[in-house]
């Protein structure tokens, strides 16, 4: 059995990168798998070259290559991200921080009561959308900065900078609420439950945007260190 040299390992890292695996955590696992397979195959086929053995081993991943592995890994880590985000959003509705959230909610409710305009709920959602757009731009800038600073990419890092879903998912909910009001009007604004509903949704949306675009990205070092500590996380 041959034992692969450093140049072979470097070649394998390059190989998985070229096959659309840009994330170091996944690259490492796949490189070890390919290397172990090549070493074993070299016993059965001593006459074959490293490249031929790599080709045999890679074919075992099927016609889509590493595509499924990356997609399903992203899916599993997205769920982890949502848990992280949910914990932090829930943190804003626990004592004593809930007082601040309550204050925003009450302020929102009384503004709706005093001004009594059908356009006001829409103005609130436009405000949330504007904050979310600023947040998405911030995420994009932070992502670029980090990519310039560090050569290794981590899948969880990518998910964090994509706001958990392609970067624009964070805009969807406030946008849908805004469209709902544009299409159906806000003639129920005089009803207490309706004003309460608008106030609660505005505060919750604001907290979600805050967590996704500010809180989690600002904690990215500690989150990645915790997630990838076993890799002795470093660049």
């Amino acid at each position: 059995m041959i034992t692969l040299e450093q140049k072979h390992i470097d070649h394998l890292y390059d190989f998985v990168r070229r096959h659309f695996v840009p994330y170091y955590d996944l690259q490492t696992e796949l490189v070890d798998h390919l290397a172990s397979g090549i070493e074993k195959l070299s016993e059965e086929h001593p006459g074959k070259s490293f490249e031929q053995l790599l080709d045999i081993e890679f074919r075992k991943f099927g016609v889509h290559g590493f595509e499924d592995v990356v997609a399903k890994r992203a899916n599993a880590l997205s769920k982890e991200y949502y848990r992280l985000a949910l914990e932090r959003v829930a943190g804003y509705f626990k004592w004593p921080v809930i007082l601040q959230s309550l204050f925003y909610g009450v302020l929102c409710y009384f503004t709706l009561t005093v001004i009594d305009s059908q356009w006001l709920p829409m103005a609130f959602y436009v405000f949330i959308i504007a904050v979310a757009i600023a947040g998405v731009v911030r995420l994009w800038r932070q992502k670029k900065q980090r990519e310039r600073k560090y050569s290794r990419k981590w899948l969880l890092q990518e998910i964090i900078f994509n706001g958990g879903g392609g970067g624009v998912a964070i805009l969807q909910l406030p946008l849908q609420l805004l469209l709902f009001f544009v299409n159906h009007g806000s003639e129920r604004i005089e009803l207490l439950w309706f004003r309460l509903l608008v106030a609660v949704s505005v505060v919750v949306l604001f907290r979600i945007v805050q967590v996704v675009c500010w809180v989690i990205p600002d904690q990215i070092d500690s989150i990645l260190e915790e997630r990838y500590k076993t890799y002795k996380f470093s660049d």
Partner: protein
Amino acid sequence: MDKWKLYKGSLDTIVLQLLGQNDRMYGYEITQKVKEVTEGELEIKEGALYPALHRLEAKGLLEVEVDHVGNRMRKYYKLTEQGLREKDNALQQLEDYLSTMKKLIDPNISFG
């Protein structure tokens, strides 16, 4: 019928059981162990194994350790406490399933 389709539904149970029998294992080792134990009857597809491992890890059933082995890093998986409990549940469910299937396909059993 493709044999793999029958085994695929039990992949998580197979992985949990193997990790229950061994302290920790890495991906390639799992594929080889399954091949060895089943005398070549079952070969776990790489494209299915890693998603299963990552899914079980995300559920908190597996934890990982990364060690340097020669000139490369190796990611090992091991059962967590929760994973250990889940392994027992999964095995029980698999046994129940096999027993039900046996009743269905055994021609000697009378259905009254």
